[in-house]
């Protein structure tokens, strides 16, 4: 008699199959799905959910990506067939034609601010770490900016490769080391050699003689200026003393 009751209790101890919660959450659009995409950078694992893209990584295998995601983001993942339009939207994002939405939940407000600010750096341009720190209202937190960028869960998409040291050294890069950072920047049209030559001479800003405006060397305002019409400055004070004002687009200094 009692055995029936015991057996019924055992029936109640049955566990849901592996991955069940992840499948339900992905189905409801709350959890994350992922797929591999062929991009200009090669194959990239991309995870997303209802709020937007939540992670991206070049990874050796699906298992490695899943393990990394679980560790860094703390949620489960389900591999799915990529939605038809997502591949195009990803390609457009990487080429700077369009903005995807991102899910940065779980990051600190500071990290979120750093990454959102990084998203504003146009393709083909770079900014120093200190610029991000000043723009988000924490001018002294340059190192913290570096840490936040090093832990960017969505490299390439949130272009942390566009943030470099003001001495021109292409710092380390989570998305594949300094070499990867250089090749992505070159792909985006940054003239690395010119940039590094300037930085090595201690020249941080370029001014245009006709407009009396000074910019970061990769700012789009300098794109059509002939080399002989540039003047270079070591710092903000030197530029201002020469009668130049900071560019309102790349904002090399507070206006």
């Amino acid at each position, binding site marked *: 008699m009692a055995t029936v009751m015991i057996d019924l209790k055992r029936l109640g101890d049955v566990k849901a199959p592996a991955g*069940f919660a992840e499948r339900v959450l992905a189905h409801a659009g709350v959890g994350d799905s992922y797929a591999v995409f062929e991009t200009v950078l090669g194959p990239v694992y991309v995870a997303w959910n209802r709020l937007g893209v939540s992670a991206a990584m070049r990874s050796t295998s699906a298992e490695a990506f899943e393990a990394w995601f679980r560790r860094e983001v703390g949620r489960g993942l389900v591999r799915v067939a990529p939605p038809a339009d997502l591949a195009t939207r990803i390609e457009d994002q990487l080429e700077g034609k369009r903005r995807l939405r991102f899910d940065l939940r779980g990051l600190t407000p500071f990290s979120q601010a750093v990454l959102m600010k990084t998203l504003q750096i146009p393709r083909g341009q770079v900014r120093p770490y200190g610029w991000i720190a000043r723009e988000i209202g924490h001018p002294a937190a340059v190192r913290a900016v570096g840490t936040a960028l090093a832990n960017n869960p969505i490299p390439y998409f949130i272009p942390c490769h566009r943030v470099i040291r003001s001495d021109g050294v292409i710092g380390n890069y989570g998305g594949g080391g300094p070499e990867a950072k250089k090749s992505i920047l070159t792909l985006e049209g940054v003239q690395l050699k010119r940039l590094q030559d300037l930085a090595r001479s201690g020249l941080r800003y370029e001014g245009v003689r006709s407009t009396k405006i000074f910019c970061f060397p990769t700012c789009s305002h300098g794109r059509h200026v002939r080399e002989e019409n540039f003047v270079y400055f070591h710092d903000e004070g030197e530029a201002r003393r020469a009668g130049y004002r900071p560019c309102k687009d790349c904002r090399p200094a507070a206006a």
Partner: protein
Amino acid sequence: MEGTDGVFERLVHDHQDRIFALGLALTGNRHDAEEVAQDTFLRAYRALGTYSPERVRELKQKAWLHRIAVNVVRNRMRGVRPRLVELNGCEPARGASPEEDALRRIEIDELAARVSALPARYREALVLRHVQDLSYAEVSEALGQPVGTVKSNVHRGLKMLRGESNGHGDD
């Protein structure tokens, strides 16, 4: 909105085993059990979106989910004749399970199949009370039936199940 998602994530993680077990006991096989459990949570998610924050906070999650799951099963079974006991509905065990686990799993699946063959009103009451270990008050709430009715249905269900056990030589 994000509040709802957070509540839902916790809800799924906290109750997935319980609701899957409920699905297994009510349908008698793991495939249907997973569908029932998934349907249950998706309905719960849609409902959560329409509830006020106070209502979400005061929700008796366990009884609420059981009620949804019972309704999901009722809807699936509507118009479907009660099936004969189905013993070959179990898939091979997941991963490298030891022999013993596989045996236990077969026993459990057999029991689930037998329970699921009971008439709905006895099966629902019996499963919620003795498989899911809900109190009579909780069962009564989940099924929308008076406690007395639940008690007598549980009793009859047990009786029928025991009758069958004997029939199968499980003395």
